[in-house]
């Protein structure tokens, strides 16, 4: 079936270093729609990035990701980590034209930024 894999459960970085969180997916959908959600402590998950366009970089709040259908990947990156980036990050998959809006989530990556 369809699935999303986030290989890192915990990523610990020093402030100022680059961030890369991995996300790969498997799907039968012909038009995959990929999302990154971020959840800060005691808050709701909120949308950070989304894309359905192959090989096009999408950016928001200093983060960026590019959907690569050839490798089924949608890695999240940031050039310089900030303390406020510490949170849980979820990669999720949907289909742009089908599947009734259902989101399929990865296991989540906890990002911990240290001074």
């Amino acid at each position: 079936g369809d699935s999303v894999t986030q290989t890192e459960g915990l990523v610990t970085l020093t402030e100022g270093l680059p961030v890369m969180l991995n996300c790969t997916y498997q799907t039968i959908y012909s038009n995959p729609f990929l999302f990154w959600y971020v959840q800060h402590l005691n808050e709701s998950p909120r949308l950070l990035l989304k894309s359905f366009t192959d090989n096009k970089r999408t950016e928001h709040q200093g983060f960026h990701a590019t959907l690569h259908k050839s490798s089924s990947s949608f890695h999240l990156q940031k050039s310089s980590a900030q303390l406020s980036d510490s949170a849980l990050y979820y990669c999720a998959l949907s289909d742009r034209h089908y599947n009734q809006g259902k989101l399929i989530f990865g296991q989540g990556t906890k990002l911990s930024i240290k001074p």
Partner: protein
Amino acid sequence: GPKVLQIPSHQIIDMGQMVTLNCDPVSNHLYFYWYKQILGQQMEFLVNFYNGKVMEKSKLFKDQFSVERPDGSYFTLKIQPTALEDSAVYFCASSLELGGNYAEQFFGPGTRLTVL
């Protein structure tokens, strides 16, 4: 930004009892969702709901589960009777559309359900 509220934040009940989880979605949204997250695992889709009807449900949406949104009030998830394996955090979400630019799902903070 738009907020989804969930009441209560934490519910503890005895196995076999009924529980209702309440969600106050974003006011103009039309599509509503429940997701379940067992501790240490990913969020999993349970059900979505539109125009008074269930559109799709997963295999996790057991016969003991039901959803409704009477008269545009809370979107509710009812479990009757509850089982130990129902212990999880339940997230409610809503969206304006299913696809396209307004398909973003806005999530509530979750209700932590503990079944003893």
